[in-house]
Protein backbone atom coordinates (compact mmCIF):
# COMPACT_ATOMS: atom_id res chain seq x y z
CA UNK A 1 0.00 0.00 0.00
CA UNK A 2 2.71 2.31 1.04
CA UNK A 3 4.40 2.00 -2.33
CA UNK A 4 1.37 3.50 -3.96
CA UNK A 5 2.04 6.85 -2.36
CA UNK A 6 5.68 6.77 -3.26
CA UNK A 7 4.99 5.86 -6.83
CA UNK A 8 2.28 8.44 -7.06
CA UNK A 9 4.61 11.11 -5.83
CA UNK A 10 7.23 10.27 -8.43
CA UNK A 11 4.74 10.02 -11.18
CA UNK A 12 3.19 13.29 -10.18
CA UNK A 13 6.30 15.35 -10.66
CA UNK A 14 6.00 14.39 -14.32
CA UNK A 15 2.31 14.82 -14.11
CA UNK A 16 2.90 18.39 -13.09
CA UNK A 17 4.70 19.04 -16.36
CA UNK A 18 1.77 17.56 -18.26
CA UNK A 19 -0.71 19.66 -16.37
CA UNK A 20 1.36 22.66 -17.19
CA UNK A 21 1.52 21.71 -20.84
CA UNK A 22 -2.26 21.42 -20.81
CA UNK A 23 -2.36 24.99 -19.64
CA UNK A 24 -3.51 24.35 -16.07
CA UNK A 25 -2.63 27.22 -13.76
CA UNK A 26 0.03 26.14 -11.26
CA UNK A 27 0.02 28.04 -7.98
CA UNK A 28 2.93 27.65 -5.57
CA UNK A 29 2.10 27.79 -1.86
CA UNK A 30 4.20 28.00 1.29
CA UNK A 31 1.75 27.64 4.07
CA UNK A 32 -1.35 25.87 5.30
CA UNK A 33 -3.08 29.26 5.27
CA UNK A 34 -3.12 29.33 1.45
CA UNK A 35 -6.80 29.03 0.45
CA UNK A 36 -6.65 25.95 -1.72
CA UNK A 37 -10.35 25.94 -2.54
CA UNK A 38 -10.02 29.14 -4.54
CA UNK A 39 -7.09 27.81 -6.50
CA UNK A 40 -8.98 24.63 -7.25
CA UNK A 41 -12.11 26.50 -8.24
CA UNK A 42 -10.25 28.56 -10.84
CA UNK A 43 -9.08 25.30 -12.38
CA UNK A 44 -5.62 25.54 -10.92
CA UNK A 45 -3.34 23.20 -9.04
CA UNK A 46 -1.79 24.17 -5.70
CA UNK A 47 1.73 22.87 -5.16
CA UNK A 48 3.64 23.05 -1.93
CA UNK A 49 7.01 24.80 -2.13
CA UNK A 50 8.25 24.45 1.44
CA UNK A 51 11.83 23.27 1.06
CA UNK A 52 12.98 20.50 3.35
CA UNK A 53 16.68 20.11 2.75
CA UNK A 54 19.66 22.29 3.33
CA UNK A 55 21.29 22.18 -0.08
CA UNK A 56 20.02 25.56 -1.20
CA UNK A 57 20.50 27.43 2.07
CA UNK A 58 23.91 28.78 1.24
CA UNK A 59 22.64 30.47 -1.88
CA UNK A 60 20.01 32.19 0.22
CA UNK A 61 22.69 33.54 2.55
CA UNK A 62 23.63 36.01 -0.13
CA UNK A 63 20.53 37.97 0.67
CA UNK A 64 19.06 36.57 3.86
CA UNK A 65 20.50 36.68 7.38
CA UNK A 66 22.07 33.53 8.80
CA UNK A 67 19.93 33.39 11.90
CA UNK A 68 16.70 33.08 9.95
CA UNK A 69 14.50 29.99 9.99
CA UNK A 70 15.95 27.29 7.69
CA UNK A 71 12.60 26.68 6.03
CA UNK A 72 12.51 30.24 4.75
CA UNK A 73 16.14 30.24 3.64
CA UNK A 74 15.94 26.87 1.91
CA UNK A 75 12.75 27.80 0.11
CA UNK A 76 14.16 31.09 -1.04
CA UNK A 77 17.40 29.42 -2.08
CA UNK A 78 15.46 27.07 -4.32
CA UNK A 79 13.62 29.95 -5.93
CA UNK A 80 16.81 31.85 -6.70
CA UNK A 81 18.78 28.85 -7.91
CA UNK A 82 15.89 27.64 -10.07
CA UNK A 83 16.56 24.09 -8.88
CA UNK A 84 13.08 23.24 -7.69
CA UNK A 85 10.83 21.85 -10.44
CA UNK A 86 7.74 22.83 -8.47
CA UNK A 87 8.93 26.38 -8.07
CA UNK A 88 9.87 26.57 -11.74
CA UNK A 89 6.50 25.26 -12.81
CA UNK A 90 4.55 27.74 -10.69
CA UNK A 91 2.81 30.50 -12.63
CA UNK A 92 2.39 32.50 -9.49
CA UNK A 93 3.31 32.06 -5.88
CA UNK A 94 0.87 32.90 -3.17
CA UNK A 95 2.11 34.03 0.21
CA UNK A 96 0.48 35.18 3.41
CA UNK A 97 1.66 37.67 5.99
CA UNK A 98 2.39 35.00 8.60
CA UNK A 99 5.71 35.30 10.43
CA UNK A 100 8.04 38.24 9.82
CA UNK A 101 10.64 36.08 8.13
CA UNK A 102 8.28 34.76 5.49
CA UNK A 103 6.64 38.11 4.96
CA UNK A 104 9.94 39.77 4.20
CA UNK A 105 11.11 36.82 2.12
CA UNK A 106 8.11 37.27 -0.17
CA UNK A 107 9.29 40.80 -0.90
CA UNK A 108 12.57 39.43 -2.18
CA UNK A 109 10.92 36.52 -3.93
CA UNK A 110 8.93 38.97 -5.99
CA UNK A 111 12.18 39.84 -7.79
CA UNK A 112 12.27 36.33 -9.19
CA UNK A 113 8.68 35.22 -9.51
CA UNK A 114 5.23 36.77 -9.63
CA UNK A 115 4.09 36.76 -6.02
CA UNK A 116 0.65 37.49 -4.63
CA UNK A 117 0.56 38.16 -0.91
CA UNK A 118 -2.63 37.91 1.11
CA UNK A 119 -2.85 39.90 4.29
CA UNK A 120 -3.40 37.33 6.98
CA UNK A 121 -4.53 39.07 10.16
CA UNK A 122 -2.57 38.52 13.38
CA UNK A 123 -5.68 37.91 15.41
CA UNK A 124 -8.80 35.85 15.04
CA UNK A 125 -11.56 38.21 16.17
CA UNK A 126 -14.50 39.53 14.14
CA UNK A 127 -12.57 42.35 12.54
CA UNK A 128 -9.78 39.97 11.61
CA UNK A 129 -12.30 37.69 9.99
CA UNK A 130 -13.77 40.56 7.98
CA UNK A 131 -10.32 41.55 6.76
CA UNK A 132 -9.40 37.99 5.87
CA UNK A 133 -12.66 37.51 4.01
CA UNK A 134 -11.95 40.68 2.03
CA UNK A 135 -8.52 39.40 1.20
CA UNK A 136 -10.01 36.16 -0.10
CA UNK A 137 -12.45 38.08 -2.29
CA UNK A 138 -9.61 40.10 -3.79
CA UNK A 139 -7.60 36.95 -4.31
CA UNK A 140 -10.54 35.34 -6.05
CA UNK A 141 -10.79 38.33 -8.41
CA UNK A 142 -7.08 38.25 -9.00
CA UNK A 143 -7.18 34.55 -9.89
CA UNK A 144 -10.08 35.02 -12.31
CA UNK A 145 -8.33 37.88 -14.00
CA UNK A 146 -4.94 36.24 -14.14
CA UNK A 147 -6.10 32.87 -15.43
CA UNK A 148 -9.06 34.10 -17.49
CA UNK A 149 -11.48 31.75 -15.80
CA UNK A 150 -14.57 32.19 -13.76
CA UNK A 151 -15.04 31.04 -10.18
CA UNK A 152 -18.75 30.33 -9.97
CA UNK A 153 -20.84 29.37 -6.99
CA UNK A 154 -20.97 25.83 -8.42
CA UNK A 155 -17.30 25.22 -8.93
CA UNK A 156 -16.47 26.85 -5.61
CA UNK A 157 -18.90 24.53 -3.86
CA UNK A 158 -17.36 21.60 -5.65
CA UNK A 159 -13.93 22.74 -4.51
CA UNK A 160 -15.12 23.07 -0.93
CA UNK A 161 -16.67 19.62 -1.00
CA UNK A 162 -13.70 17.85 -2.45
CA UNK A 163 -11.31 19.50 -0.01
CA UNK A 164 -13.60 18.64 2.86
CA UNK A 165 -13.66 15.05 1.75
CA UNK A 166 -9.90 15.00 1.50
CA UNK A 167 -9.56 16.53 4.97
CA UNK A 168 -11.94 14.05 6.49
CA UNK A 169 -10.06 11.16 5.00
CA UNK A 170 -6.70 12.53 6.05
CA UNK A 171 -8.01 12.94 9.59
CA UNK A 172 -9.42 9.45 9.57
CA UNK A 173 -6.08 8.15 8.40
CA UNK A 174 -4.16 10.03 11.08
CA UNK A 175 -6.60 9.00 13.76
CA UNK A 176 -6.04 5.33 13.05
CA UNK A 177 -2.95 5.81 15.15
CA UNK A 178 -5.02 6.23 18.26
CA UNK A 179 -5.05 2.45 18.41
CA UNK A 180 -2.46 0.68 20.56
CA UNK A 181 -0.14 -0.29 19.03
CA UNK A 182 -0.44 2.43 16.40
CA UNK A 183 -0.88 0.71 13.02
CA UNK A 184 1.05 3.22 10.92
CA UNK A 185 4.64 3.92 11.80
CA UNK A 186 5.26 7.61 12.41
CA UNK A 187 7.90 7.76 9.71
CA UNK A 188 5.53 6.13 7.24
CA UNK A 189 2.69 8.44 8.18
CA UNK A 190 5.01 11.40 7.71
CA UNK A 191 5.92 10.13 4.26
CA UNK A 192 2.29 9.64 3.34
CA UNK A 193 1.32 13.09 4.58
CA UNK A 194 4.20 14.56 2.71
CA UNK A 195 3.69 12.65 -0.50
CA UNK A 196 -0.01 13.34 -0.48
CA UNK A 197 0.72 17.02 -0.93
CA UNK A 198 2.08 16.11 -4.33
CA UNK A 199 -0.91 14.24 -5.61
CA UNK A 200 -2.71 16.72 -7.76
CA UNK A 201 -5.63 14.72 -8.93
CA UNK A 202 -7.90 15.01 -5.91
CA UNK A 203 -10.22 12.25 -7.06
CA UNK A 204 -7.37 9.84 -7.45
CA UNK A 205 -5.99 10.87 -4.10
CA UNK A 206 -9.30 10.25 -2.40
CA UNK A 207 -9.49 6.81 -3.93
CA UNK A 208 -5.99 5.93 -2.81
CA UNK A 209 -6.64 7.22 0.69
CA UNK A 210 -9.81 5.20 1.04
CA UNK A 211 -8.07 2.04 -0.04
CA UNK A 212 -5.20 2.67 2.30
CA UNK A 213 -7.47 3.32 5.26
CA UNK A 214 -9.47 0.16 4.53
CA UNK A 215 -6.37 -1.97 4.25
CA UNK A 216 -4.97 -0.57 7.47
CA UNK A 217 -8.21 -1.22 9.30
CA UNK A 218 -8.23 -4.81 8.11
CA UNK A 219 -4.81 -5.33 9.55
CA UNK A 220 -5.40 -3.79 12.94
CA UNK A 221 -4.04 -6.20 15.46
CA UNK A 222 -4.76 -6.23 19.12
CA UNK A 223 -1.31 -6.70 20.49
CA UNK A 224 0.15 -5.62 23.74
CA UNK A 225 2.75 -2.96 23.15
CA UNK A 226 4.82 -1.18 25.72
CA UNK A 227 6.38 1.15 23.22
CA UNK A 228 6.39 4.75 24.33
CA UNK A 229 4.07 6.98 22.33
CA UNK A 230 5.14 10.40 21.18
CA UNK A 231 3.34 13.38 19.66
CA UNK A 232 5.29 15.73 17.41
CA UNK A 233 4.28 19.38 17.47
CA UNK A 234 5.76 22.75 16.52
CA UNK A 235 7.34 23.95 13.28
CA UNK A 236 6.93 22.00 10.02
CA UNK A 237 8.90 18.76 10.35
CA UNK A 238 9.73 18.03 6.70
CA UNK A 239 13.33 19.19 6.98
CA UNK A 240 14.16 17.35 10.18
CA UNK A 241 12.52 14.04 9.35
CA UNK A 242 15.70 11.93 9.43
CA UNK A 243 17.16 13.62 12.43
CA UNK A 244 14.09 13.49 14.62
CA UNK A 245 11.22 11.31 13.39
CA UNK A 246 13.38 8.44 12.15
CA UNK A 247 15.66 8.68 15.13
CA UNK A 248 12.80 8.40 17.62
CA UNK A 249 11.82 5.15 15.94
CA UNK A 250 15.37 3.88 15.91
CA UNK A 251 15.39 4.43 19.64
CA UNK A 252 12.38 2.19 20.03
CA UNK A 253 9.51 4.62 20.52
CA UNK A 254 6.50 5.34 18.32
CA UNK A 255 5.50 8.66 16.82
CA UNK A 256 1.72 8.60 16.91
CA UNK A 257 0.65 12.06 15.76
CA UNK A 258 1.85 15.20 14.04
CA UNK A 259 0.33 18.36 15.45
CA UNK A 260 2.01 20.53 12.84
CA UNK A 261 1.64 21.70 9.26
CA UNK A 262 2.61 18.36 7.80
CA UNK A 263 -0.20 16.83 9.83
CA UNK A 264 -3.28 18.03 11.61
CA UNK A 265 -2.92 21.80 11.11
CA UNK A 266 -3.37 21.21 7.43
CA UNK A 267 -6.38 18.94 7.68
CA UNK A 268 -8.48 19.53 10.76
CA UNK A 269 -11.63 21.66 10.56
CA UNK A 270 -13.92 21.60 7.55
CA UNK A 271 -15.42 24.43 5.53
CA UNK A 272 -19.13 24.84 6.17
CA UNK A 273 -20.92 23.96 2.92
CA UNK A 274 -24.05 26.06 3.49
CA UNK A 275 -24.18 29.84 3.29
CA UNK A 276 -21.58 32.30 2.09
CA UNK A 277 -18.74 30.09 0.90
CA UNK A 278 -16.01 32.71 0.92
CA UNK A 279 -16.86 33.60 4.47
CA UNK A 280 -16.92 29.94 5.44
CA UNK A 281 -13.53 29.41 3.85
CA UNK A 282 -12.18 32.44 5.70
CA UNK A 283 -13.49 31.04 8.98
CA UNK A 284 -11.96 27.62 8.44
CA UNK A 285 -8.49 28.97 7.78
CA UNK A 286 -8.57 31.30 10.76
CA UNK A 287 -9.11 28.21 12.92
CA UNK A 288 -5.60 26.95 12.16
CA UNK A 289 -3.77 26.86 15.50
CA UNK A 290 -0.54 28.45 14.28
CA UNK A 291 1.86 30.27 16.58
CA UNK A 292 1.91 33.33 14.32
CA UNK A 293 -1.51 34.26 15.73
CA UNK A 294 -1.91 36.50 18.74
CA UNK A 295 -3.30 34.38 21.59
CA UNK A 296 -3.11 31.07 19.84
CA UNK A 297 -4.68 29.25 22.78
CA UNK A 298 -6.19 26.51 20.67
CA UNK A 299 -2.89 24.76 20.21
CA UNK A 300 -2.39 24.03 23.91
CA UNK A 301 -5.96 22.78 24.05
CA UNK A 302 -5.39 20.46 21.11
CA UNK A 303 -2.19 19.11 22.64
CA UNK A 304 -4.06 18.23 25.80
CA UNK A 305 -6.79 16.46 23.85
CA UNK A 306 -4.26 14.62 21.70
CA UNK A 307 -2.33 13.36 24.72
CA UNK A 308 -5.50 11.73 25.99
CA UNK A 309 -6.86 10.50 22.68
CA UNK A 310 -3.56 9.08 21.47
CA UNK A 311 -2.52 7.79 24.93
CA UNK A 312 0.73 9.65 24.49
CA UNK A 313 3.63 9.52 26.93
CA UNK A 314 5.62 12.40 25.54
CA UNK A 315 5.41 15.54 23.42
CA UNK A 316 8.33 16.75 21.32
CA UNK A 317 8.07 20.35 20.21
CA UNK A 318 10.21 21.09 17.16
CA UNK A 319 11.53 24.63 16.98
CA UNK A 320 13.42 25.56 13.86
CA UNK A 321 16.26 27.92 14.79
CA UNK A 322 15.13 31.45 14.23
CA UNK A 323 11.42 30.76 14.59
CA UNK A 324 10.44 33.11 17.37
CA UNK A 325 6.73 32.42 17.51
CA UNK A 326 7.07 28.70 18.08
CA UNK A 327 10.03 29.21 20.42
CA UNK A 328 7.95 31.51 22.60
CA UNK A 329 5.01 29.12 22.64
CA UNK A 330 7.16 26.31 24.03
CA UNK A 331 6.34 27.33 27.60
CA UNK A 332 2.64 27.12 26.97
CA UNK A 333 2.92 23.73 25.33
CA UNK A 334 5.18 22.47 28.10
CA UNK A 335 2.56 23.39 30.67
CA UNK A 336 -0.27 21.91 28.64
CA UNK A 337 1.66 18.64 28.22
CA UNK A 338 2.43 18.37 31.91
CA UNK A 339 -1.17 19.13 32.77
CA UNK A 340 -2.33 16.28 30.58
CA UNK A 341 0.25 13.96 32.11
CA UNK A 342 2.85 13.71 29.38
CA UNK A 343 6.55 14.57 29.42
CA UNK A 344 7.64 17.41 27.21
CA UNK A 345 10.80 18.46 25.44
CA UNK A 346 11.44 21.22 22.96
CA UNK A 347 14.17 20.63 20.40
CA UNK A 348 15.73 23.56 18.64
CA UNK A 349 17.42 22.59 15.44
CA UNK A 350 17.85 23.44 11.77
CA UNK A 351 18.25 21.50 8.54
CA UNK A 352 21.95 20.72 8.94
CA UNK A 353 23.34 17.41 10.08
CA UNK A 354 25.88 18.94 12.47
CA UNK A 355 23.83 18.39 15.57
CA UNK A 356 22.51 14.91 14.78
CA UNK A 357 24.60 13.41 17.58
CA UNK A 358 23.37 15.84 20.19
CA UNK A 359 19.79 15.48 19.04
CA UNK A 360 20.13 11.75 19.31
CA UNK A 361 21.40 11.96 22.88
CA UNK A 362 18.56 14.26 23.80
CA UNK A 363 15.94 12.03 22.24
CA UNK A 364 17.49 8.99 23.86
CA UNK A 365 17.48 10.60 27.29
CA UNK A 366 13.94 11.85 26.77
CA UNK A 367 12.70 8.38 25.88
CA UNK A 368 14.60 6.81 28.79
CA UNK A 369 12.83 9.14 31.18
CA UNK A 370 9.33 8.40 29.89
Amino acid at each position, binding site marked *: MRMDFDKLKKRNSFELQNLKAEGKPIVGTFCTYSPKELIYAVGGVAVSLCANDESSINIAHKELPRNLCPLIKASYGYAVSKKCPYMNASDIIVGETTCDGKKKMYELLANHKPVYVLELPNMTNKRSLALWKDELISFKEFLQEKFKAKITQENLLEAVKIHNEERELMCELMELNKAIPSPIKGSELHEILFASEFIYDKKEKIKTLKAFIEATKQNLEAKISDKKRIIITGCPSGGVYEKIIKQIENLGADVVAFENCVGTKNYRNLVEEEGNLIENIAKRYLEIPCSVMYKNDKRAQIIKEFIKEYSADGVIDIVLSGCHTYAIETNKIREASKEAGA*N*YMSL*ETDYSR*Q*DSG*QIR*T*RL*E*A*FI*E*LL
Partner: protein
Amino acid sequence: MYLIGIDIGSTSTKVAVFNKNDQKFTELFLRPTGFSGVKIADEIYEILKEKNYFPSFITATGYGRVSVKYANFTTTEILCHALGANFLFPKDCTVIDVGGQDTKAIKIVANRPEDFIMNDKCSAGTGKFIEVMANRLGIDINELYTTAKKNLNIKLSSTCTVFAESEIISLMANGVDKTQIAYGIIDSSAQKVASLTKRLENEIYFLSGGLSRVSLFKNLLANHLQREVFTDENAIFCGAMGASLIGLKKEKS
Protein backbone atom coordinates in the same frame (compact mmCIF):
# COMPACT_ATOMS: atom_id res chain seq x y z
CA MET B 1 28.96 -10.21 41.15
CA TYR B 2 29.96 -6.65 40.35
CA LEU B 3 27.96 -3.92 38.67
CA ILE B 4 30.33 -1.69 36.84
CA GLY B 5 29.62 1.74 35.38
CA ILE B 6 31.98 3.27 32.85
CA ASP B 7 31.49 6.91 31.95
CA ILE B 8 33.65 7.99 29.01
CA GLY B 9 33.67 11.77 28.92
CA SER B 10 35.64 13.94 26.54
CA THR B 11 38.33 14.65 29.15
CA SER B 12 38.29 11.81 31.63
CA THR B 13 36.86 8.35 31.94
CA LYS B 14 35.27 7.45 35.24
CA VAL B 15 34.70 3.95 36.55
CA ALA B 16 32.49 2.87 39.45
CA VAL B 17 32.40 -0.66 40.83
CA PHE B 18 29.41 -1.72 42.88
CA ASN B 19 29.49 -4.95 44.81
CA LYS B 20 26.13 -6.58 44.64
CA ASN B 21 26.73 -8.78 47.64
CA ASP B 22 27.28 -6.06 50.19
CA GLN B 23 25.40 -3.39 48.17
CA LYS B 24 28.28 -0.93 48.32
CA PHE B 25 30.59 0.86 45.94
CA THR B 26 33.91 -0.95 46.27
CA GLU B 27 35.97 1.29 44.11
CA LEU B 28 35.87 4.50 42.10
CA PHE B 29 38.69 5.49 39.76
CA LEU B 30 39.39 7.67 36.79
CA ARG B 31 41.78 7.91 33.86
CA PRO B 32 42.30 10.55 31.22
CA THR B 33 40.28 9.69 28.11
CA GLY B 34 43.02 10.58 25.68
CA PHE B 35 42.33 10.64 21.98
CA SER B 36 40.65 7.32 21.47
CA GLY B 37 37.56 6.06 23.21
CA VAL B 38 38.34 2.54 22.06
CA LYS B 39 41.82 2.64 23.54
CA ILE B 40 40.68 3.84 26.92
CA ALA B 41 37.87 1.28 26.91
CA ASP B 42 40.43 -1.49 26.34
CA GLU B 43 42.66 -0.09 29.04
CA ILE B 44 39.78 -0.11 31.51
CA TYR B 45 39.00 -3.69 30.57
CA GLU B 46 42.54 -4.75 31.45
CA ILE B 47 42.35 -2.94 34.78
CA LEU B 48 39.05 -4.59 35.64
CA LYS B 49 40.47 -7.98 34.79
CA GLU B 50 43.57 -7.41 36.85
CA LYS B 51 41.47 -6.42 39.82
CA ASN B 52 39.33 -9.49 39.43
CA TYR B 53 36.04 -7.68 38.96
CA PHE B 54 34.47 -10.43 36.92
CA PRO B 55 31.79 -11.76 36.65
CA SER B 56 30.18 -8.39 36.24
CA PHE B 57 27.45 -6.47 34.51
CA ILE B 58 28.89 -3.48 32.68
CA THR B 59 26.93 -0.35 31.78
CA ALA B 60 28.59 2.27 29.61
CA THR B 61 27.62 5.91 29.39
CA GLY B 62 29.06 9.26 28.34
CA TYR B 63 29.75 10.44 24.86
CA GLY B 64 32.25 7.62 24.28
CA ARG B 65 29.84 4.90 25.39
CA VAL B 66 29.71 3.27 21.96
CA SER B 67 33.44 2.50 22.25
CA VAL B 68 32.86 0.10 25.12
CA LYS B 69 32.30 -2.97 22.99
CA TYR B 70 32.19 -5.30 25.98
CA ALA B 71 29.40 -3.37 27.74
CA ASN B 72 26.22 -5.28 28.55
CA PHE B 73 24.16 -2.14 28.31
CA THR B 74 24.57 1.48 27.26
CA THR B 75 22.59 4.50 28.29
CA THR B 76 22.72 8.29 28.18
CA GLU B 77 24.67 10.32 30.69
CA ILE B 78 21.53 12.25 31.59
CA LEU B 79 19.86 9.33 33.28
CA CYS B 80 23.15 8.21 34.86
CA HIS B 81 23.96 11.60 36.33
CA ALA B 82 20.50 11.82 37.75
CA LEU B 83 20.70 8.42 39.44
CA GLY B 84 24.27 8.92 40.63
CA ALA B 85 23.51 12.33 42.07
CA ASN B 86 20.39 11.06 43.75
CA PHE B 87 22.44 8.30 45.36
CA LEU B 88 24.93 10.78 46.81
CA PHE B 89 22.36 13.46 47.59
CA PRO B 90 18.89 11.99 47.95
CA LYS B 91 16.87 15.21 47.83
CA ASP B 92 14.67 17.01 45.33
CA CYS B 93 17.00 19.33 43.46
CA THR B 94 18.35 20.30 40.07
CA VAL B 95 21.56 18.47 39.19
CA ILE B 96 24.03 20.47 37.14
CA ASP B 97 26.83 18.75 35.29
CA VAL B 98 29.36 20.82 33.39
CA GLY B 99 30.91 18.40 30.95
CA GLY B 100 33.77 18.89 28.55
CA GLN B 101 31.43 19.18 25.58
CA ASP B 102 28.04 19.75 26.99
CA THR B 103 26.43 21.06 30.09
CA LYS B 104 23.25 19.59 31.37
CA ALA B 105 20.76 20.19 34.11
CA ILE B 106 18.35 17.56 35.37
CA LYS B 107 15.47 18.19 37.68
CA ILE B 108 14.90 15.49 40.28
CA VAL B 109 11.49 15.14 41.82
CA ALA B 110 10.73 12.34 44.29
CA ASN B 111 14.01 10.56 43.47
CA ARG B 112 13.18 10.50 39.78
CA PRO B 113 14.57 12.58 36.94
CA GLU B 114 11.63 14.60 35.70
CA ASP B 115 13.03 16.98 33.12
CA PHE B 116 16.38 17.94 31.66
CA ILE B 117 18.05 20.50 29.42
CA MET B 118 21.33 20.56 27.56
CA ASN B 119 23.29 23.37 26.01
CA ASP B 120 22.87 23.84 22.27
CA LYS B 121 25.56 23.64 19.63
CA CYS B 122 27.58 26.37 21.34
CA SER B 123 30.53 25.63 23.62
CA ALA B 124 29.89 28.53 26.00
CA GLY B 125 29.21 27.27 29.51
CA THR B 126 31.00 23.95 28.98
CA GLY B 127 34.34 22.68 30.18
CA LYS B 128 35.73 23.40 26.75
CA PHE B 129 35.33 27.13 27.30
CA ILE B 130 37.50 27.07 30.41
CA GLU B 131 40.04 24.81 28.75
CA VAL B 132 40.45 27.08 25.74
CA MET B 133 40.80 30.12 27.99
CA ALA B 134 43.43 28.44 30.16
CA ASN B 135 45.38 27.63 27.03
CA ARG B 136 45.17 31.21 25.96
CA LEU B 137 46.55 32.33 29.32
CA GLY B 138 49.29 29.77 28.89
CA ILE B 139 48.54 28.02 32.15
CA ASP B 140 47.34 24.60 33.17
CA ILE B 141 43.63 24.33 33.91
CA ASN B 142 44.24 23.38 37.57
CA GLU B 143 46.49 26.35 37.97
CA LEU B 144 43.70 28.50 36.62
CA TYR B 145 41.41 27.29 39.39
CA THR B 146 43.94 27.59 42.21
CA THR B 147 45.44 30.95 41.37
CA ALA B 148 42.29 32.85 40.44
CA LYS B 149 42.08 36.14 42.31
CA LYS B 150 39.07 38.32 42.61
CA ASN B 151 39.00 41.66 40.86
CA LEU B 152 35.49 42.77 40.15
CA ASN B 153 36.67 45.22 37.53
CA ILE B 154 37.85 42.42 35.30
CA LYS B 155 34.87 40.91 33.58
CA LEU B 156 34.62 38.89 30.42
CA SER B 157 31.63 40.21 28.60
CA SER B 158 31.55 37.69 25.73
CA THR B 159 30.15 34.27 26.36
CA CYS B 160 31.27 33.19 22.91
CA THR B 161 34.48 31.19 23.17
CA VAL B 162 36.07 32.86 20.19
CA PHE B 163 35.28 36.41 21.24
CA ALA B 164 36.20 35.77 24.86
CA GLU B 165 39.58 34.60 23.64
CA SER B 166 40.24 37.90 21.94
CA GLU B 167 39.04 39.74 25.03
CA ILE B 168 41.64 37.86 27.03
CA ILE B 169 44.32 38.75 24.55
CA SER B 170 43.57 42.41 24.91
CA LEU B 171 43.39 42.19 28.71
CA MET B 172 46.83 40.57 28.72
CA ALA B 173 48.10 43.22 26.37
CA ASN B 174 46.93 45.82 28.85
CA GLY B 175 48.98 44.14 31.53
CA VAL B 176 46.14 42.71 33.62
CA ASP B 177 47.35 40.01 35.95
CA LYS B 178 46.67 36.44 34.77
CA THR B 179 45.21 35.48 38.13
CA GLN B 180 42.55 38.13 37.80
CA ILE B 181 41.70 37.09 34.27
CA ALA B 182 41.41 33.53 35.56
CA TYR B 183 38.79 34.70 38.02
CA GLY B 184 36.91 36.45 35.25
CA ILE B 185 36.91 33.25 33.22
CA ILE B 186 35.46 31.13 36.02
CA ASP B 187 32.89 33.76 36.86
CA SER B 188 31.78 34.09 33.27
CA SER B 189 31.34 30.30 32.97
CA ALA B 190 29.37 30.16 36.19
CA GLN B 191 27.10 32.89 34.92
CA LYS B 192 26.52 31.16 31.61
CA VAL B 193 25.79 27.85 33.32
CA ALA B 194 23.34 29.58 35.65
CA SER B 195 21.49 31.13 32.74
CA LEU B 196 21.45 27.85 30.81
CA THR B 197 19.76 26.09 33.69
CA LYS B 198 17.26 28.88 34.30
CA ARG B 199 14.38 26.86 32.92
CA LEU B 200 14.85 24.19 35.56
CA GLU B 201 15.03 26.66 38.41
CA ASN B 202 14.85 25.03 41.83
CA GLU B 203 15.24 25.61 45.55
CA ILE B 204 18.53 23.76 45.76
CA TYR B 205 21.13 22.50 43.31
CA PHE B 206 23.66 19.71 43.20
CA LEU B 207 26.83 20.10 41.18
CA SER B 208 28.22 16.92 39.66
CA GLY B 209 31.07 16.27 37.29
CA GLY B 210 34.63 17.54 37.25
CA LEU B 211 33.90 21.10 38.31
CA SER B 212 32.37 19.88 41.57
CA ARG B 213 35.91 19.81 42.92
CA VAL B 214 36.50 23.48 42.14
CA SER B 215 35.04 25.30 45.12
CA LEU B 216 35.45 28.73 43.53
CA PHE B 217 33.26 27.64 40.63
CA LYS B 218 30.70 26.16 42.98
CA ASN B 219 30.52 29.36 45.02
CA LEU B 220 30.25 31.61 41.99
CA LEU B 221 27.54 29.38 40.57
CA ALA B 222 25.63 29.66 43.85
CA ASN B 223 26.00 33.42 43.58
CA HIS B 224 24.51 33.55 40.14
CA LEU B 225 21.73 31.11 40.94
CA GLN B 226 21.10 32.88 44.25
CA ARG B 227 20.54 29.49 45.80
CA GLU B 228 22.59 26.96 47.72
CA VAL B 229 24.64 24.54 45.64
CA PHE B 230 25.60 21.20 47.18
CA THR B 231 28.10 18.65 46.03
CA ASP B 232 29.97 15.58 47.22
CA GLU B 233 33.63 14.64 47.13
CA ASN B 234 32.71 11.82 44.76
CA ALA B 235 30.40 13.89 42.59
CA ILE B 236 32.81 13.56 39.67
CA PHE B 237 31.78 9.89 39.58
CA CYS B 238 28.04 10.56 39.41
CA GLY B 239 27.71 9.38 35.82
CA ALA B 240 29.65 6.17 36.44
CA MET B 241 27.83 5.48 39.69
CA GLY B 242 24.47 6.01 38.04
CA ALA B 243 25.49 3.60 35.30
CA SER B 244 26.39 0.94 37.91
CA LEU B 245 23.04 1.42 39.58
CA ILE B 246 21.17 1.03 36.32
CA GLY B 247 22.94 -2.30 36.00
CA LEU B 248 21.22 -3.30 39.21
CA LYS B 249 17.87 -3.22 37.42
CA LYS B 250 19.01 -4.31 33.99
CA GLU B 251 21.04 -7.26 35.08
CA LYS B 252 17.91 -9.09 36.20
CA SER B 253 16.11 -8.80 32.90
